[in-house]
Each structure stands twice: as C-alpha cells, then as structure tokens.
C-alpha cells in the first residue's frame, strides 16, 4: 500500500522544525519513529500534505538525570529505553514496559514522544507516565510550556498539543528512597497491543505508603488514572489486604470495550489481577 503524496522536510534543529510547522500550519505533521503514522498513511487514514521529520534533530534524543528529574528526549527510541542502564537500575516501571512495547523491530524506530503524542489508549507509555506523575515539555510558536501527563492526554488519539507544537521531552520525578514500580501487560501474542495492562509506582516511608500512582492501558477511551485506588493505597501499610482493595478499585475505574481481545467483564477482571501483581512486585522492589 502506498501513502499519498507529501512534501518532505528534514530539519536538523528544533527551531527549524518549529519554523516549518509555523509555515505550513494545519497541513503539516511531525514524523517521529513513523511506527504509527506511516501505517496510517499506508492505509490512507492519514494523508498529511507536509511531513516534518524529526529524526535529524539530535537534541531531541537522550536519557539523563538532572535537577531531580529523569529527562527523556522525545525522539528517544523505545529500544534505547530498553537498553539504558540508568533506566534498568532506577526506573523498573519504565524498564518493564520498554521491553514489551510492540516488537524489537518496531522498538528500534518508535519513540517516547511519538507514543505520547499519538495518545493511543492502548499505548504502554501513557499509563507508565501517568503512574510516574510525569510532565512533558512542549515547544511551539508561543514559546515553551510544560503540561502534566494528565493535561496532555485528552482522549482517544487526542492531546492538548496545539497546532505547530512539538513535544520535546518527558520529565519524570527522580524516585525517592523506598520507591518501586512495575508494569504488567497481558497480550495475546508477543508484539501485540495490550488486552489490558497496568502501571504502578509506589513509595514507602516509615512503614506506610506515602505516594501511589496507577495507570491503566487499553481499558478505556484514553489512558486511565485509577485515582480512587491511589488514594486508598496512600497512607495504608501496603499489606496484602490493602493491595487487594486497591486492585478492586482499579478494576472499577476501568472502562473497557469488548473486542477481539476479550469481553468487558474479562478485561475488567484482568485489570484487577494485573494491578495486584504489579503492586506486589512494586512493593517487593521498594524493599523493606
């Protein structure tokens, strides 16, 4: 299948990319890893007149800690997250998820920024960044701004990014002592989008839970934050009863639709099971 015609630009700096977007307005689309956009263009579900390819903008890739935050450049490939020692040692939730996004070939192209900007409710990084309480840096004609992940993800394939804006990086608060996270994904086969998946991040201080984040993948029209489950965990002793109660609340927060991957009831129950498993692993990783 052949995509429609378009005009192609390959800027090497963010400023050039922003200028191209400003010049072409609503005709233009950004091309990141292309692993969602190109399939859509092949099916002619997307036919942008102008593509601004970010693959040559080196300043948009990279993984580093600074100023109390982990910063992941928008063009950082899923495979770079998967192989990063920093991620493996300090951000187990991201490491878990990076290894199960799509398949290794897609991970060699697909990017963090592309995933979040695409806002697929079945995208794994949306719920991961929700659980982590991440924020995203955005550059645009009006200058730079910061959005929380909850502000960014608006609905199915919809974000609050304005025309001409580029998501430049994701910022995750550095984990405090006593933190742990885990991602549990149920997929029909390797490389598939989730039937259901759950991201959790908890912090334990003085024997009780001081912070909890829970994000749900593929069980609603957008990424879901299970706020009631988070609230119930916070202040609890993180014993198994507390984890079970939170898992029930997470299942109640899900809003799945029946499809080839399963019925509503099945998916909702899987949210319960996956939340419990993820919480148990997160607590173990948080130590003591």
């Amino acid at each position, binding site marked *: 299948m052949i995509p429609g015609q378009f005009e*192609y630009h390959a800027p090497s700096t963010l400023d050039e990319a922003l200028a191209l977007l400003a010049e072409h307005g609503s005709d233009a689309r950004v091309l990141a890893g*292309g692993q969602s956009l*190109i*399939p859509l263009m092949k099916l002619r579900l997307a036919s942008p007149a102008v593509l601004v390819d970010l693959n040559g903008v080196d300043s948009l890739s990279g993984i580093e800690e600074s100023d109390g935050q982990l910063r992941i450049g928008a063009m950082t490939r899923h495979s770079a997250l998967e192989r990063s020692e920093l991620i493996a040692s300090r951000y187990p939730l991201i490491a878990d998820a990076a290894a199960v996004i799509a398949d290794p070939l*897609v991970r060699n192209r697909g990017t963090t920024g592309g995933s979040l900007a695409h806002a697929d409710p079945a995208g794994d990084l949306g719920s991961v960044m929700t659980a982590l309480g991440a924020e995203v840096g955005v550059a645009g004609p009006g200058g730079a701004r910061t959005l929380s992940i909850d502000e960014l993800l608006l609905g199915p394939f919809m974000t609050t990014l304005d025309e001409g804006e580029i998501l430049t990086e994701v910022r995750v608060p550095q984990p405090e002592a006593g933190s742990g996270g885990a991602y549990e994904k149920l997929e029909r086969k390797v490389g598939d989008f989730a039937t259901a998946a759950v991201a959790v991040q908890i912090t334990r201080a003085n024997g009780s839970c001081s912070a909890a984040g829970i994000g749900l993948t593929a069980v609603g029209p957008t990424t879901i934050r299970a706020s009631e489950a988070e609230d119930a965990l916070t202040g609890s002793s993180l014993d198994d009863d507390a984890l079970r109660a939170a898992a029930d609340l997470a299942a109640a927060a899900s809003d799945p639709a029946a499809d080839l991957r399963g019925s509503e009831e099945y998916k909702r129950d899987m949210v319960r099971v996956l939340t419990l498993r993820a919480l148990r692993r997160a607590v173990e990783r948080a130590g003591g």
Partner: protein
Amino acid sequence: MTQIEVTVNGAAQQIDVEPRLLLVHLIREDLQLTGTHIGCDTTHCGACTVLLDGVPVKSCTVFAVQANGSEVTTVEGLEQDGALHPVQQGFTEEHGLQCGFCTPGMMLTSVALLEQNQDPSEDEVRQAISGNLCRCTGYVNIVKSVQHAGRVIREG
C-alpha cells in the same frame, strides 16, 4: 522528486525518489533487490527487515528519503566474495527455513543480534526474532540456525 545518497550493500548510490516511496519499494523496485520481501500491509510481519545503519528495521515502515546518508544492508549484501555469511551457513546447516519467505528478514535480525551477542541463549534468540513471523518452521530450527551461526563466528 528528492535526490538521496544511500549506500546499499556497500555501494554508494544517488537516486531520485518521491518522498512517499517506502524504503522497501526503493529496494525491490528501483534497485531490483527482491530478496527483501513484503508480507503484510500493517507493519506486523518483519519479512521486509533490512539493516539501516546496522539496526534492523521494517523497511515497509520507513520512507526511502529517510535513508538519505545512511547505509542499508539487505540479504543480498550478506555473502562476501562468494562466501556465505555465518548466518546463511547456519540456516543452511540447520534447515532454518521451509518456504523461505521470512528468511531474509530473519537473517538480518539475526546478524544484528550476533553483532551484540555471539553466544545467545534460546531465549535471547527468540526475543530478538519476535518481530519476524514465520508461518512454516515453528521457529525451532531458526533458533538452532542462529546459534549455529554464533558458533561459526566464535570459532572464526
């Protein structure tokens, strides 16, 4: 049309392409290297896998213009001076194919794996090739072929 410069299997080429041309079509149609296959329309099968600057990617999901300034390796580039690449030897020795449709993609993914890890476990091979679908072999002999290739490389 945009002019790109791309090195394919070691030979630098200057080619005029329409931006919408997919890399796989450049390879198969313009360059007549038909060892790279197309097995789906949805970026699922991996039959189109090539190495782009050494990294295995689905060439049906990259535009040819994006390969400007890059090196592309296809299955035709594996043989060197009449000698089969160790991965090709492995697939021959261990019967790593039946119909052969997935084989070029499988081999390129395996070449990239063996660059990083010359002694992969069965699990590591299965992980690495999990984006390449095979409808014939059940993967058992493919795993053996890749491990065989690893041995050939290690023994020099």
